[in-house]
């Protein structure tokens, strides 16, 4: 009950430090951008920046759902497969002169919701470790993708469906607006709703959440279903961008999405994480990929550099949780 607990030695240096640790991940991004701008003049052109944001939009959108899952101490390895299945289902209903756009969208998102709910069922009701449940579903959903598409890409879409991935509005790709919308929606859910509070509580201490009368099962079901839907959204966008619904789509995207979340400060032990962090994490990955391409770094070395920088970013960001 003493005052020992609060005794800053130096107010200024303390607040600077607090600021730096709180926003360290932003500084890493800024630093990376600065270095790349210096090394490659093409980097900072608006058209390239737009390009980067569009490229990361898929993994960021997947990452938003995954972030919520990781906050509840879970993980989702099935995202990449859900991308494929949802893309295929939506593609099947996107041929000209068959159904209105809404049908493709609703079925695509619906199948993602269902896939997510299956994950949620295993994790929240059957109480399997999320890693193994979603690993199993990663295999199963991918198989379903092959079965539904019979191994072949599905092509030939309506103009409206094509517009999702290739359209522009007010000079910006539609995909960027979708990214923005998904980010705002996810942010609001996590930060400003009861569900968001429950998600953090479950991740912070599941037993305490139960005792506090929080419906853990219901909230976990929500989180996994939401993440499934976000993956499906990415799947629809990807199939439209490529003009093709493919059973191989989204392979290993789950790892990029998880990396984005973790680089962005989401803790794999749960209870901690933000949507804006994940967005920054995805941007760091995107900026890296793009920058290395612009600098014509040999592809073999790109992997080494990317791996090292991911580790470095997390090291620099570690101060935050200290």
């Amino acid at each position, binding site marked *: 009950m*003493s005052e020992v*607990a609060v005794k800053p030695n130096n107010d200024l240096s303390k607040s600077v430090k607090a600021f730096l640790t709180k926003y360290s991940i932003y500084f890493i991004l800024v630093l990376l951008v600065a270095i790349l701008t210096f090394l490659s003049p093409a980097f900072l052109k608006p058209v390239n920046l737009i390009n980067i944001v569009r490229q990361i939009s898929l993994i960021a959108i997947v990452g938003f759902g995954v972030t919520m899952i990781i906050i509840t101490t879970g993980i989702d390895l099935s995202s990449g497969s859900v991308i494929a299945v949802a893309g295929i289902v939506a593609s099947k209903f996107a041929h000209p002169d068959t159904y209105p756009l809404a049908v493709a969208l609703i079925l695509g998102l619906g199948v993602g919701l269902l896939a997510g709910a299956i994950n949620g069922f295993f994790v929240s009701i059957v109480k399997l470790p999320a890693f193994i449940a979603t690993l199993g579903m990663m295999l199963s959903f991918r198989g379903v993708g092959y079965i539904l598409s019979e191994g072949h890409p599905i092509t030939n879409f309506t103009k409206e469906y094509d517009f999702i991935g290739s359209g522009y509005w007010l000079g910006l790709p539609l995909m960027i607006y979708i990214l923005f919308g998904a980010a705002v929606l996810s942010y609001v859910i996590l930060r400003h709703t009861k569900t968001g509070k429950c998600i953090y509580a479950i991740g912070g201490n599941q037993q305490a959440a139960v005792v506090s009368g929080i419906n853990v099962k219901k909230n976990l079901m929500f989180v996994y279903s939401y993440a499934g839907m976000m993956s499906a959204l990415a799947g629809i966008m990807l199939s439209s961008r490529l003009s093709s619904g493919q059973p191989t789509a989204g392979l290993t995207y789950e790892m990029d999405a998880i990396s984005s979340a973790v680089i962005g400060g989401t803790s794999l032990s749960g209870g901690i994480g933000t949507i804006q962090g994940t967005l920054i994490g995805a941007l760091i990955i995107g900026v890296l990929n793009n920058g290395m391409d612009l600098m014509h770094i040999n592809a073999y070395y790109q992997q080494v550099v990317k791996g090292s920088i991911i580790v470095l970013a997390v090291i620099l960001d570690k101060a935050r949780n*200290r």
Partner: protein
Amino acid sequence: MEEQYILEMVDISKSFPGVQALKGAGIKVRKGSVHALMGENGAGKSTLMKILGGLQPADSGKIILKGQEVSFSSPSESLKNKISMIHQELTSIPHMTVAENIYLGREPLAGKVFVKDSDQNARATELLQGLGIQIDPKIKMVRLSIAQMQLIEIAKAISYNSEIIIMDEPTSAITEREVEHLYTMIRNLTKKGVAVIYISHKLNEIFNIADEVTVMRDGEYVNTKKIEELTRQDIISMMVGRELTHMFPKVEVEIGEPVLEVKNLTRAGKFNNISFTLHKGEILGLAGLMGAGRTEVMESLFGLVPANSGEVLIKGKPVNIKSASDAKKNGLAFITEDRKLTGLFLPHSVKDNIIAASLDRFVVGGIFMNEKSVNGICEDQKKLLRIKTPTIEQKVKNLSGGNQQKVLLAKWLLTDADIIILDEPTRGIDVGAKSEIHALMGELVKTGKSVIMISSELPEILGMSDRIIVMHEGKLTGEVSRQDATQDVLMSFATGTI
């Protein structure tokens, strides 16, 4: 001084980011004596001992062990110097056996590599028997109760054959009977010349076992005195730095009609035919020894673990409580005994902890949280309970134990429940905070609420309760009114000797 100190810690300072935990603190311990280390929550007792145990380095200061200046950079160095420690936080490894836990890091080896399991088990058996602890060393730690785990930790600390044993709140999870047993063990140790540094918030224990007392406040050394020179009040005022008049400030409230009736509640293997009644404005004490099943009854009452049979009536109406949210709807609140395990969200802010059980009350438009009202109400709670924290955004893990307990209380008070179950509400809490929590209980019953208080501290039960029921091995063995209750009566119910 007639005899040489075995250990002197002088002028020790230590700071954590933003916190000066120790400012020139120290302690001088004689061979073969029990030296109590006292102080409020956050005074720096554990930190001082962690420095001695090699867990944390000091920023400055000296440690003199048997006349030699030493410094330990790891627990193994400290252990090598014959200093062992029972930690405040339980440090058992759930899926290893009792024997493996005890001899962890110093297993009997064949050829320097292979562990001789049977040797280890034999040694553990011998050790536990010698200490009078009836636990099979081959079973896994996870199968023990918290109290049994604490006994194993005590046995482990003793098994190092150390010259100095640090006991940081060794009795936080065990009850009077085991405490008596611990006293015996300590007396045997001191007879052999072992020095014991004993940290506890329970004054009774200090007067029972300690030879000398050192008091710390705000990370600083206050004073050291022989126990004979001290009264309770002396220690308290040294710790708190002011006079603390009311220890158990019992508020007299008129007891009203029954609000909760429990009839023949049974859960197989845990408790049997539990029946009791709680009245409006009443504080009902629930006493018993370790493992009596008190917590279990409350868990079933609160819908966390289903009972097999029995009936519960609230305000005369039968209710069917199957989950914590059912319990909340029926006006129950449950402040659980282990605030870290089942109470708090340690990585989260004070604010998020306080609102966690009453989220619905802040929801606007069906889904959104009304941040403004959250902030306002949390600030109110902070003031009301005098929670010591710079802001309500502070992470709970950075608060001291007492303040954490208050956050937990705030969470449940916010649900505005009529029936408040407090399970060991002052465990590990210093006297100052304790009396504040007791005062608060008085406030609660004054406003017409009712309280069930489980406590393993008989003075607390006796001081606070209007009526006391006692459990023994899953059965209700007695009921006494405030007037008739004495330590002896309660103990005989609790041990089943009546």
